[in-house]
């Protein structure tokens, strides 16, 4: 037995020279990666670095162009997710693969390949999810659940298959600090059971806390194998992006001026059995101010966004005021004409139509506000003007794309998010409402988006940011309010707020929650 073989004998998964070529693009270029038994291994990289391609090959969703995957020392060809599951590889996707119309238990049953009756599976799922601290209701319809709750279904579904290797794609991007801590406990429990985890994240602090090894990808190549515990977050970030990560640069705001966005006594009944009713929400966002709304997924953020944006109207006009004028009875176009702009949580299917090009998507939210520039008589689209505006947004926000005017679905998550935010910023709105601005977005894009929001406020606009990412809120906001159970707390100026305080409010101030210690800013 030579040394390499002995070394490999301990490895659960050993990937050698894995390559994937799409046309002219080498999405993965001979990537090597080894994961030992009971190891939590991080896969780091910006969006477009090849992480998703790499794990899709591991999970049998894409066929490699070259390279070998050794599973327990045996070369394997994984040609479908079913085979991957058969080997003992489970995956929790960032974009969930769940059917909205089915219940949690039905979704789990579909993936299991198990003839057990639904009731048994539901009971097992409920039990397992409680064991691992991820409680879920197996009979809830997925369509009615929040992103965080959907993730629990995915994780439970994955654990039910008793995998030896679990691939987690950006798992904490939708969680509160407390939930993330719970998840870490879950992961450590899994590690102690001898399971291995491939952990994809762009939260470097987390990776440092949790992972035993890390592989860093940049432009499809491995740039480093390292031990994240021996690195600093900035050295890890440097490996990912190639040079120093820019930091959001924020000035102290001037004294609060007029309220550009005011919500007065907003209540809304639940529109379906699983929706969160909103009750008596009051807030003001002033010129030059960024107000953050923290909260766990599924506490009414979506319902609140729909009400503020005008996708759902209010019963009285003065409930929502934009730039001092009543807007409660205006629809979303009417509110845009009052110089408000909105970016919803879901990029694909809400902020942008997947099969439409970027320029058509630009028109989607701006055909009324920019009607003079973009539309000729009889609603004929001025292709050139729209195309130029699209180019402007793309270059301002550094949106990377492969063809001049691709369909929205062809962009990576981070690039599409930069586009849908840039589309609104290009109008220089007086009021900007953003839900989860950087969910699932890589570090570079996230900094760019946050900087753009800060700059917008600096120029005198009012910005309302709904986010589950506390680091983000502390970084860019002037004050933070917390949404819980359809109510919003009084905002706390960011200088006075602590992670602990916000975290407790997010949990509904229930005792017994264990807040995460504040993350040091490097």
């Amino acid at each position, binding site marked *: 037995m030579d040394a390499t073989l002995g070394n490999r004998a301990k490895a659960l998964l050993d990937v050698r020279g894995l390559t994937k070529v799409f046309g002219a693009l080498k999405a993965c270029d001979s990537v090597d990666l080894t994961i030992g038994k009971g190891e939590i291994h991080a896969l780091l990289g910006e969006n477009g670095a090849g992480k998703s391609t790499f794990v899709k090959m591991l999970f049998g969703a*894409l066929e490699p162009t070259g390279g070998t995957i050794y599973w327990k020392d045996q070369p394997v060809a994984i040609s*479908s997710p*079913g*085979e991957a*599951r*058969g080997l003992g590889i489970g995956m929790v996707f960032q974009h969930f693969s769940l059917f909205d119309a089915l219940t949690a238990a039905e979704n789990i049953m579909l993936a299991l*390949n198990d003839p057990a009756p639904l009731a048994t599976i539901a009971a097992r799922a409920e039990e397992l999810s409680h064991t691992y601290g991820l409680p879920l209701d197996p009979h809830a319809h997925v369509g009615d659940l929040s992103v965080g709750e959907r993730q629990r279904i995915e994780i439970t579904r994955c654990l039910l298959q008793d995998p030896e290797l679990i691939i987690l794609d950006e798992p904490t991007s939708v969680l509160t600090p407390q939930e993330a801590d719970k998840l870490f406990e879950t992961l450590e429990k899994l590690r102690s059971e001898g399971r291995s985890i491939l952990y994809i994240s762009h939260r470097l602090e987390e990776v440092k806390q949790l992972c035993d090894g890390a592989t860093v990808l940049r432009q499809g190549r491995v740039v480093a194998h390292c031990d994240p515990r021996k690195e600093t977050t900035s050295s890890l970030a440097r490996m990912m992006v190639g040079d120093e990560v820019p930091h959001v640069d924020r000035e102290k705001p001037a004294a609060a001026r007029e309220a550009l966005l005011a919500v007065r006594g907003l209540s809304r009944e639940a529109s379906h059995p699983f929706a969160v009713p909103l009750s008596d929400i009051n807030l003001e966002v002033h010129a030059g101010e960024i107000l953050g709304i923290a909260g766990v997924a599924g506490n009414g953020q979506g319902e609140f966004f729909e009400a503020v*944006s005008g*996708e759902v109207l209010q019963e009285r006009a003065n409930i929502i005021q934009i730039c001092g004028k009543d807007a409660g009875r205006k*629809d*979303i*176009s009417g509110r*845009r004409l009052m110089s408000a702009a*909105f970016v*919803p949580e*879901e990029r694909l*299917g*809400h*902020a*942008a*139509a*997947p*099969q*439409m090009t970027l320029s*058509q998507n630009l*028109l*989607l*939210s701006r*055909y*009324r506000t920019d009607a003079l520039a973009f*539309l000729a008589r*009889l*609603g*004929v*689209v001025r292709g050139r003007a729209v195309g130029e505006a699209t180019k402007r947004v793309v270059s301002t926000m550094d949106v990377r794309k492969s063809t001049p005017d691709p369909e929205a679905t062809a962009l990576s998550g981070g690039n599409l998010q930069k586009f849908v935010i840039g589309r609104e910023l290009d109008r220089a709105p007086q009021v900007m409402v953003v839900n989860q601005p950087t969910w699932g977005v890589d570090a570079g894009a996230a900094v760019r988006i946050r900087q753009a929001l800060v700059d917008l406020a600096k120029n005198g606009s009012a910005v309302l940011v709904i986010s589950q990412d506390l680091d983000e809120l502390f970084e860019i906001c002037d004050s933070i309010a917390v949404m819980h159970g359809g109510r919003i707390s009084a905002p706390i100026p960011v200088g006075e707020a602590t992670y602990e305080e916000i975290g407790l409010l997010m949990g509904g101030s229930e005792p017994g929650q264990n807040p995460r210690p504040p993350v040091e800013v490097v």
Partner: protein
Amino acid sequence: MRIELVKRPQSSPLFSALSPFLALLLTLFAGAVMFLFLGKNPLEALYFFFIDPLLETWSLHELMVKAAPLILIGVGLSVCYLSNNWNIGAEGQFIVGAIAGSILPVMFPGFQTWIVLPLMLLMGVLGGAAYAAIPAFLKARFNTNEILVSLMLVYVAELFLDWLVRGPWRNPEGYNFPETRNFHDFAVLPEIWPDAGRAHWGIIFAIAAALVLWFVLSRTLKGIEVKVVGQSPRAGRFGGFSRARMVIFAFLVSGALAGLAGISEVSGAIGQLRPAISPGYGFTAIIVAFLGRLNPLGIIAAGFVLALSYLGGEAAQISIGVTDKTARAFQGMLLFFVLACDCLIHYRIRLTRTVAARSTEAPAGHA
């Protein structure tokens, strides 16, 4: 062993463009096999079906007569289908358009001036649109299933027409035949080249409608609205487009065009109302819309192809003695192959053995 459809990461643009042609080829091939089983010489049969009708001027005129309603209805349906409104009831809208348009010449045969024909066309349009408004309103207001409602209304329209021509509208001088009186000269849609054949102005309406809708769908905000609301309703709502208004719009457009097709057919090709005024144009137009890839320009071409299948059916009945139902068989195969090609462009077939079978094989290799 299990057959799976796996979504392709990207679908080939080449084959997407080729798909209607592939479908045509496959239909011809399957048709040849069908003729073989019928005991006919397949090449000769296909010749009489698809080539012979194109060789005479008069039959080219017949082709236009048949293509006109198919194209008119098909382009209207494309607006519906692009906006995710499944109007299956164009046949009914066609019939109601024909009935509404026939009110003047049937009930007021003495009213004979040049204004009659434009009024008839207008009433046909309004009749078709009004009939399509029923499923649209029910969907927009009560969220009913438009497929069922629009389809069932077809039978209502057919029975209503049947009752009319056998009852109140029967020609008093018609020897009790179930027909209305013949339309007077001012109520007849003129032929384009009266000396050459029967092609009437319907085909011009059809091509004009296709060009207008092509422009609207590809160059205007309305086109974007239709597609966004159809593909991605939440994004449509985010854009400020109303789903309910789009339901009404799509049904009114397609109903109006189906109604225009109905009155053009009655006034241009038949000259009176009868119990059956359509050989299933409203249903065949669904094939036309999909074969034309929901693109109005493609639908013009597809309309002629399907019109040819009707003509071929009639011709083959006479020349080689097969039933004219073969035309419906061809149309069915064509729709099948179009959808099958599209399916295989977006998905690939994979045969998988179950995981259990695989794991029992592995130790056997060692032994």
